[in-house]
């Protein structure tokens, strides 16, 4: 291999890595994920019945759990989203968001594999996309952003940092 090309390639790789692990990239990720999750929770909180029906369509949960799931999940999305935006309980929020995305990926992937032709029910009621590979890829992109925040967040502009600092200064 041409040494110049090798060096160039390594530099590019290093540059991309630098961007990915940059604290401001994680901050941007936090903002994007926070907004998505807050937005996604609203209608489900207002109309849990409709969301329960959408959840039932997946045929993954036993019937007795559907309502509880439809009641709790939107609030989990809302609080994780708000806390992630504020940078409060950031590590817990991003953990929950990652787990939720894994669950969504599993649910949509299994619906695709089983050939169940349903709407995703994710951003009710304005967006009712059918479950498709494209939707799964969109979720994967969101998952990568969530992983980036999970591993690289340095709590820039966060309440966590502010609270820690004030606690340290009061000692």
């Amino acid at each position, binding site marked *: 291999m041409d040494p110049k090309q090798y060096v160039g390639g390594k530099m590019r790789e290093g540059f991309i890595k630098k961007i990915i692990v940059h604290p401001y990239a994680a901050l941007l990720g936090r903002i994007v994920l926070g907004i998505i999750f807050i937005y996604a929770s609203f209608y489900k*909180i207002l*109309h*849990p*019945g*409709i969301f*329960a*029906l*959408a959840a*039932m*369509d997946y045929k993954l949960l036993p*019937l*007795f759990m*559907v*309502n*509880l799931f*439809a*009641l*709790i999940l*939107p*609030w*989990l999305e*809302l*609080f*994780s989203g708000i*806390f992630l935006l504020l940078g409060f*309980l*950031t*590590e*817990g*929020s991003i*953990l*929950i968001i990652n*787990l939720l995305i894994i669950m969504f990926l599993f649910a949509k992937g299994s619906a695709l594999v089983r050939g169940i*032709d*349903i*709407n995703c*029910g994710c951003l*009710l*009621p304005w967006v*009712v996309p*059918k479950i498709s590979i494209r939707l799964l890829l969109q979720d994967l992109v969101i998952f990568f952003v969530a992983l980036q925040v999970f591993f690289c967040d340095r709590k820039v502009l966060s309440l966590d940092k502010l609270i820690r600092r004030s606690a340290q200064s009061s000692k």
Partner: protein
Amino acid sequence: MNKKKLSEGAIIFLIAVSFALLTNLFRSDGLPLVQIKPASVSFSTKNNQESTVSFEVLKGKFKKPGIILIDVRSPQEFKKEHIPWAINISYHEFSEKLPEIMKQISFSQEIIVYCGGIECSDAKNMAFLLNAKGYKNVKVYKGGWGEWTQNNMSVEK
């Protein structure tokens, strides 16, 4: 995974569960926590007010052009007998058939939905879903199939 992440996650989970249960408790359209049969997934229409039509009104509007009559009972029940001119979109097929509905029915069209009778909630739920999707002129024929046949009205097979 470190302890901090897990404990923070647990705190957020507890907050979410508390809010979910408390708000559900105080809502007029709260869901039963444990659901036993599919039909018990129910919710009220916008502002808890449902737009309904009586038997007489439906009879008057019967076969009028521009009115869409939707039978939300199961396809099997529909095939057996139904109100003439009705189309079948069973409640549980709603999400599946939604793109087709949106293509063929305009948002301003008058839609009347019905199910088995007064005791069934599927028509009300379907009306709510249609309303949420942007159909603003949706009404429920509360008496449903039961009342229609009791009045010896014509049926279609």
